[in-house]
Structure formats: C-alpha cells, structure tokens
C-alpha cells in the first residue's frame, strides 16, 4: 500500500474525585479512612506552610518565595505513592512534596530566607537539592534511574517539573533517553497552566502535555491534578511499573497556580480575575473536604483541629528557623570542593 497509517494513539485522562466531592468507586484506589485523613492533613500542612511563607516574605523575614497553593493535591497525592528508597528530583515549587516526605519545614523556610544550608536535607531522604534552572533536573533523574538499574535496586526515580519545563531541550533529551533505555523513572509534570506570564497555549501547540511521551515511546497520562485520588492512583501505578522494570511513565497533573508566580510577581498584569476565581472553586483541599464530609469524616470542628495542628507545626518551624545563627563567611566555601584549592583555602581564612 502506498499510503498507510503507521501510528495512532490515545491519551488517557484520569479523574476520580469530582468538584462536588463524589468519587468514581470503580477507579478509587484502595486507601483506608486513616490514610485519606493523613493525605488531608498533609495538604492542609502544605497550604499552611505556603500561607506562612508568604506572610513572612511580606514582613521581610523571608526572601522571594514561589507559592504552591492550588497544587497541594498534585504534590501530596504523588508524594504519598513514593517509597522511602525512591529518589526524588524536585523543581523549586515542590514544598508540598518535600513536607509530605518528611523534609523539615524549618529547613525549607531557612532555604527561602536565602540560606543555602536549608538544602542539606536529612540523610534518610533521597531528595536532590531543589532545582532553580527550569527543567535541568530531568536528565539527572534519568541518570539516577540508569544507576539504580545498574545496581539492580528495585527503586523508582521521580522527576518533578512544570509545564514551562516541557519546552526545554533537557526535557526532550531526558524523555528520549528514558524511552530508549526503558528506565525506572516517573516524570511528574504539574501543569499549572502558567510559566510566569506565559499561558499554556503559548507554551505548546500540543493538545495535551501527556501525549509528548508517546513520541519517545512510553505512555503519558493526564490526570486531574486537583484530585488527590487520581494523582495518587496514577503515581502509584507508574511507580510500581517502574520498580518492576517495565519502563518510564509521564504523568501530567492538570492543576492551577492560584497565586502569583512568586512573591516578586504580579499575576494581575497578565491573567484575569475570572480565571483565578474559577479555579478557586476547584480548590483541591475543599474538594477533598466535601468527600470527607459526605463520608462523615469531616466537620467544621475537625477541620479547625487539623488546621490548628498544622499552624502549630509551622509556628514551631518558624521559631526553630529564626533561632538559627546566620551563616559565617567561611560557609561560602562549603562544598565548593571536597578539598579546597590552596587559593580557596587562603580566601576562606579571610582575605
């Protein structure tokens, strides 16, 4: 035949929990009430951290800070599927992931005051330093996956990034290599629909981000990123698949950046209040509350208690962070090299 279709594909979209808090029982992952309660607490903690960080920034007690509000389901849902032995390569807007995995809130705050000692995470966590250069962490995750397989370690590697990162060469090169080597890596994109002032439609002409994986020979799925159950379910499956040696998966979490890009940005310059308000009605935390209420697992009172506990944790973290003595000049050289050059050693002594 001179002309034939040689490839066609479908891209799945997964949603389990709707705006009203109803779930599709057939798709619901197995989660106990206790586990769902912990997810809810983690989302509230992430939101509370965010609110406090912004307040501290406004008071001059924190540097420029990138808000996560609106992305709690994508971050907490995926983090819940991650095992302690997995490796994580975050971008800079992953505070909900870090907190859920047990990264100390005080250290995260410390980092955002402009103190790089906050990047020294606890030994027990395999979380790479957060990455500011958009997309550049993605190939590194592929390399860690290559090494894990070389060592026959049954772990998965997770790379987090935003919609803007999908325009970087690093994204495409990493995807290609992960596909060629069928690596145990899960790519999680939080498509919050904005990259600073650039809306998704100016970032890509593609109908979804998920389908970009198809071109590299592995599946991509779009999930409702404000649905913690859908995110968890997709991440769980992708991670199990990766650990079992069946190759990479790309998960696009369709969500929304409810706040400015960072505390240094004014999103009012480039997007409409109507759009923001629409997405506020889809707040992932409120959505989960509706589900919990229908199940008899949430009330005004229990909600207040969860919030109070979160505030308590963050209060303590702020106190701890502010008690840390500022770094000494010699800190400039920490980790510059395992052994400083003679000139660096001189400079460190106080030039």
């Amino acid at each position, binding site marked *: 035949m001179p002309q034939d279709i040689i490839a066609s594909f479908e891209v799945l979209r997964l949603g389990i929990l709707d705006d009203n808090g109803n779930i599709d029982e057939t798709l619901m992952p197995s989660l106990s009430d206790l586990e769902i309660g912990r997810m809810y607490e983690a989302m509230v903690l992430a939101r509370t951290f965010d609110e406090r960080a912004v307040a501290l920034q406004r008071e001059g007690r924190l*540097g*420029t800070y990138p808000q996560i509000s609106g992305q709690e389901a994508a971050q907490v849902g995926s983090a819940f599927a991650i095992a302690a032995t997995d490796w994580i390569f975050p971008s*800079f807007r992953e505070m909900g992931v870090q907190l859920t995995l047990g990264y100390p809130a005080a250290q995260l705050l410390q980092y955002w*005051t*402009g*103190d*790089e000692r906050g990047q020294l995470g606890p030994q027990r966590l395999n979380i790479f330093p957060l990455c*500011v*250069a*958009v*997309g*550049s962490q993605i190939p590194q995750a592929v390399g860690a996956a290559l090494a894990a397989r070389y060592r026959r370690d049954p772990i998965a590697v997770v790379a987090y990034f935003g919609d*803007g*990162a999908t*325009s*970087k*060469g*690093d994204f495409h090169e990493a995807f290609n290599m992960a596909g060629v080597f069928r690596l145990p890596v899960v790519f999680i994109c939080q498509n919050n629909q904005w*990259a*600073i*002032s*650039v809306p998704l439609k*100016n*970032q*890509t002409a593609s109908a979804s981000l998920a389908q970009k994986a198809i071109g590299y020979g592995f599946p991509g799925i779009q999930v409702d990123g404000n649905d913690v159950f859908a995110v968890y379910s997709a991440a769980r499956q992708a991670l199990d698949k990766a650990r079992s040696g069946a190759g990479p998966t790309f998960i696009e979490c369709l969500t929304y950046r409810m706040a400015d890009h960072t505390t*240094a*940005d004014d999103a009012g*310059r*480039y997007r409409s209040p109507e759009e923001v308000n629409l997405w506020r009605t889809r707040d992932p935390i409120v959505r989960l509350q509706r589900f919990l209420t229908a199940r008899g697992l949430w009330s005004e009172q229990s909600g207040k208690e969860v919030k109070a506990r979160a505030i308590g944790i963050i209060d303590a973290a702020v106190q701890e962070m502010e008690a840390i003595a*500022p*770094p000494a*000049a010699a*800190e*400039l*050289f920490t980790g*510059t090299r395992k052994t400083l*050059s003679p*000139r*660096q050693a001189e*400079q*460190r002594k106080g*030039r």
Partner: protein
Amino acid sequence: MAQLNMVQAINQALGEEMERDDRVVLLGEDVGRDGGVFRVTEGLQERFGAERVLDTPLSESAIMGAAIGMAAYGLRPVAEIQFLGFIYSAFEQLAAHAARLRSRSRGRYSCPLVVRTPYGAGIKAPELHEESAESIFCQIPGLKVVVPSGPYSAKGLLLASLRDPDPVLFLEPTRLYRLLREEVPEGEYLLELGRAKVARAGKAVTVIAWGSMLERVLKSVAAYDAEVIDLLTLNPFDVEAVLTSVKKTGRAVIVHEAAKTCGLGAEIAATIAEEAMLYLRAPVLRVTAPDAPVPLAKLMDYYLPSTQQIQAAVAEVLKY
C-alpha cells in the same frame, strides 16, 4: 532632558530603535505581555505588536538559535535571556554558532544579534539569578561583551550594540537597574563599543571596574587621588585607555564581582604586565569575589568586593 533610571533608559533605547528600524524584533520569556520580569520591555508589545515583541516558550536554546536564523535572514533580533544564569543551555548556539557564523561562512552570513540579559549580584534573588560569569563569554573571539554602568551609558551602548554588525552580549547589572538616575537625552547618541571612559580623573593610582562595581569603586576612592576607568566594553576592552592611565599613575587595581581565578582581571593584569611593566611602581592588585559559587542573600555581603577591600587595595599599592 529627563532623569531616567537604567530600566527606563534601556526601554527608551529599544523603543527608539524599533521606531527607526523595522528589522528590530524582540524575543524572550515574559518580554511581551508582562513587559519583562524587570519591566525593561514594558509597553513595547502594546506599541509595536506581538509580532515584534515575541513571548517565547521557555526555551533558551531555541531563543538563541532562532535569533541567529533571524539575524542571518536580515532582521536585527534582540534576544532576552531572563537571567545570565539561565544562558547555559543556549551556550552552544551562542559560542558555536552566533560568534562563528561570519567566520564559518567566510563572510557570506553574519549575525547582528544583541543578547540582553540581567547580570550580577546584590538583589536578594534566588539561586542563579545573580551570576557574573562575564569572563566565560570574553573567551569567545567572535562575540562582543558590553556592560553599562548607569542609565546614560546603558542607552548609548545599547544603541551602538543594536547597530553593530556582529553579535553582542549586553549584560545589564541588576543592582543598578533602579539605583541610579541620570540625565538621558532623548533621541540618538551612540557610545562606541570598545571604548572605556575615565569616570574620575586622578594621578596616583588607576582603578579599573565595570558594571555595578563602578558605583562602589567611585564611592570607595573618594579620599584618594585615584583615576577610575569604567571599562564599558569587556571584549574587546580598551587597552589603550588602560595603558595610558597606568603609565601615568604607575599603579593599578582591578575590581570585579566575579570569582578571582580566570576572571577578566587576570587578562587586564597580564596586558598591563606585557605592555607597561616598566611604568609600574607597585604590583597590580585584584579585588574580586572569592572562588566560590555566587551565594544566596545571607552570605552575599561576604561575597561581593566591599568598600573596605577596595580601599585596602588602593592603600596597599600607594605604599610603594
């Protein structure tokens, strides 16, 4: 004449040149609708349309590579890299292509491209937003590297860069964006690339600086008989201006905010040693950042050359 800050001066230069020459097209991340994260391109998309002020996807390599194609085709692209620290993925396009196109095509194609990027430290921004890696780019023979030190020089140098037949990396010191105001004439004036300026006349010592360090040097040497040279173009730098001054004073101090080892100070000091050794009365000193990565806010005061360090170096060479 209006008192403008550097953001306004650069904005004015871009606007006037776009008015004059329809080949000038701006492209970069957030340069259009948002007017740039520092508002340097504010209002230009409204004035000239989305075809001339392009909000690109988040793709530094494609921004640089596309700008090369546009330039070779006959346009005058101005590519913005949002911060110097994000230029690295575009380095191949810049170093292997933009700076070599004329040479590789033996003159058939050229690349009249201006790459504008905020640079330098002292604004309490996140990691990679305060880099000063200028010397990396000064090692590329086909590229010019320009650093203004205030609103007046920013406009005149940018206009000259926009008229230049070859690629120019135009580094905008972020600390100065809103720090200084100067008289900036409306309309055209060009400051020739490759020409330094004597920012302050003096007889006892020559202090060479550029960008945001110039402001600090001028404050620091008020009590000394120091001649201060504002380099303005880093490659090709104004050897003649440096040597003329050093031959007169017999002493030289070079101040830059980039790390010491292989910083541009080394090139300047070597040139002085080669060409003016016999005029020197003291060793040539450098006041620079240490050989450490550019830190975040809490360590920044230990990183950037301080007034005390500049004064100590000047006092030191004056002992001879």
